[in-house]
């Protein structure tokens, strides 16, 4: 009897956590479009509800926000948080390796830079030098709560010859990597059929080979190496991670590739991981702005660093302002695809972790 009373008290306490009704000027919706007059209810670090005509109880604390509320950006493939490349070089098949074991959660510049760029979660991948490289991990860029959201996101496979080739001991070619992967029976990797895979590819052949091996049993995401213009047509209808050039170093071919990928029905996401160096977190937004301009489809561009990126990772808790998602929110002075916009505040898991410079008036 007493125990039951205590339990109900505890439950009452939990539900009494304050509910915030955020009322920004505009809200970025899950499909990447934006709308006015939308209220976002947040409690306990979760988004309770989103809508234009929500019935607000008396105890709800309203807060009008000056600016555009966007979901925190998701860095779809990243090496941030790992001080060394997360790769075990001694073997080609390391399916049980986990990037989560390499993430340094001490709050250093890397995390701060991510937050300052509006990035609230990163998908950290093991380096793709191995045919079976191991498991990716999802981490938030700040906040006091549990930082590793998912220690086992997707299995990283690599069929990009540039990544796996070893002229000393093999595999010596893409065909060899394909054969090695086939011999290693990828469908039998524990959990791969539940969690899916991120596959590094640099050619249409690699895409076909991976499809042939994994079929529909494994949800596949594709991380594009080399020049996707040469093989992007093989990826119609797929969600891909496109490595972006740094900041303003996009060349016309790359921009045209972006446009043609989109036109071909490829869902593009961006991440900061790059072949030889990491990209600045701010480049994510720059890539989305560029994509918006090239494709004339701002919603898809917005999704490329938010909801589509979450789909790339396979995480349905981040990347969108929607009921049941984490309250990873960023308040911008204008639409984030407006290159003049700046960050006014960043909230991770309902906790405000940074504020922009004080506003005029």
């Amino acid at each position, binding site marked *: 009897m007493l125990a039951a009373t205590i339990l109900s008290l505890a439950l009452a306490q939990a539900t009494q956590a304050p509910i915030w009704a955020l009322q920004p000027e505009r809200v970025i919706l899950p499909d990447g479009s934006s709308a006015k007059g939308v209220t976002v209810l947040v409690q306990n670090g979760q988004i309770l509800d989103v809508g234009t005509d929500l019935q607000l109880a008396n105890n709800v604390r309203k807060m009008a926000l000056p600016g555009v509320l966007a979901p925190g950006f998701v860095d779809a493939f990243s090496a941030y948080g790992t001080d060394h490349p997360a790769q075990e070089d001694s073997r080609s098949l390391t399916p049980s390796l986990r990037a989560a074991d390499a993430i340094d959660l001490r709050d250093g510049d890397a995390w701060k830079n991510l937050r300052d760029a509006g990035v609230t979660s990163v998908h950290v991948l093991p380096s793709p030098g191995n045919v079976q490289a191991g498991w990716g991990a999802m981490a938030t860029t700040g906040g006091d709560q549990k930082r590793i959201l998912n220690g086992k996101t997707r299995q990283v496979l690599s069929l990009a*010859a540039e990544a796996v080739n*070893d*002229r*000393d*001991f*093999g*595999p*010596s*070619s*893409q*065909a*060899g990597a*394909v*054969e090695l992967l*086939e*011999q290693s029976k990828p469908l039998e990797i524990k959990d791969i059929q539940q969690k899916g895979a991120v596959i590094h590819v640099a*050619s*249409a*052949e690699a*895409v*076909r*080979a991976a499809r*042939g091996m994994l079929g529909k049993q494994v949800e596949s995401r594709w991380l594009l190496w080399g020049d*996707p*213009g*040469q*093989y*992007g*047509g*093989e990826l119609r209808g797929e969600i891909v991670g496109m490595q972006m050039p740094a900041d303003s170093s996009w060349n*016309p*071919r790359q921009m*045209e*590739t972006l446009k*043609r*990928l989109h036109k*071909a029905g490829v869902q593009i996401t961006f991440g900061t991981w790059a072949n030889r160096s990491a990209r600045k977190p701010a480049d994510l937004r720059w890539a989305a702005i560029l994509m918006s301009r090239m494709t004339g489809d701002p919603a898809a561009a917005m999704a490329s660093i938010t909801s589509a990126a979450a789909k790339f990772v396979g995480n349905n808790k981040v990347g969108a302002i929607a009921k049941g998602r984490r309250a990873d929110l960023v308040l911008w002075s204008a639409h984030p695809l407006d290159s003049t916009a700046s960050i006014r505040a960043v909230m991770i898991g309902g906790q405000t972790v940074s504020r922009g410079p004080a506003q005029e008036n």
Partner: protein
Amino acid sequence: MISSVLLGSLFAFASTSSVPVSAPAQDQTQTISVDVLHVGNGETLENVLIQVNDGKISAIIPGGKIPSDAVRVEGAHLTPGLVDAFSYMAVNQTTVEESRETTASASLARSIRLADPAFQIALAEGVTTAFLTPDSLNVFGGMAAVVKTAGGQPADLFADAGSAAQIIGADVALKISLGNDVSMGNHPPFGRPSGFYSRRPTTRMGAVWEVRRQFYRAKRYMEQRKNGSAEVDADLEVLAKVLRGEMPLRVQARRNNDIQTVLRLAVELGWKDVTIEEATEAFRCADLLKAAGIQVVAGPAYDQRSRAIASGPSLAELRMAADPPPICCENLHEDLFLTNWEDGGPVYPKHVCETDTTFRAGLEVPRNQYGLPIDPNFDDHDDHDHESAMGDLSGLALDLALLVRTPRTATGLSSGRFSEGDQATPALAALLDQAGVTTVLGAAEAHDQSLTESSLIHQARRAVQYGLAPEKALAMVTTRAAEFCGMADRIGLAKVGYDADLVLWSGDPLSATSRPILILVDGQVMLDNRN
């Protein structure tokens, strides 16, 4: 010209519709009127209308009234699209795993780059279908694929529609290689292995040993699978298919001894469906091949030394080498052994006779490309006395010179096709056909570059020049080649119901002056060179 436009557009940044690819509605019938139709099986028909509908040949009407919208070029001949039954198009280092002797389960269909320019080159030469065979850099190279050279949806976002090859047969045969190629670069470990070249095989015997070992493993494996005591092994599964007769076997063998090794292995291991690839010296054992019922896809005897094989010294040059100009002087030995190996042979230095200062010093002996004197009687030593003993010595010198020189002039290089192909003859197809061996022609790497003088149709023309009946030559690159690809029910024949892969030639296809002027793949115009 058109082909260069095709290729250029592959790489053009913003491609325009420079390629004449038509996309007729599916129910639209195209009609081609030709003076001569080569059906592909040796038969020819004159004044024919060929109707194409939905990618297939829908009707062949002899002597019909020519409709006004029919495609017609005066004097043109029509053939089925050529079928290259032995091709290395787009087969390169990315499609072969060199670090192991056995990659039987490696599938070319999974690793071939369908946007490779080679397919466009081949298409422009009339080749619409190709049997792609795995490379010969390991013993079990993997499984072959059959592709059409055009009509595929390109993965290249900047390419024109239909400009990519398309796979029509995956894993159609297992490829094994014998001879030099498979051991190229390999060496014993000498202690600690330094890399994947520290591996077997290092000899011909080693290659065959590997073949035997794997097939005996496969036989054991099949038994063990039956009683459930072995796990699935992708490589051995492929070998088991071969042993059960479910998958044809392709064996690359150039030398007579390698070919005869194949015959022995076929009996020993119970191979049911074997084709010998390249088979350069097969004419030396044609009777054995005939008796064993083993078929041959003959590789090309190339024209170009840089790519090839068949350009050793001519007989005249060898005679010249056997009768060199007299050698004199005290510094004889220096002259003889001045050999520059990097340039491919001994150097015949400008001869200056120090014993006679009045001699026409510096007068150069005219020499051919092999460094041999062009005129064997050239003698600029008329005013110079030779001791009689010098005559004997020059005989010795001659032997030495030939000893040093012969292997290199005859083979060019010391490994691979360069040494194994030195007995190539363009009469190979004719000789095998004469002996009753089922033979087709293949172009190997001929289409990898735009060296059109070694293209498939050129191989057929050469074979005819060297004694093969024209209708047989044409069958060897169409109908019969389709049989070798296992596709005889849909390609290689101009017949109702077959794929509308057609080539319109400006004249007789086997005439050296003919060229393809219109090419259809699956009924779609892929190349139009009529203007």
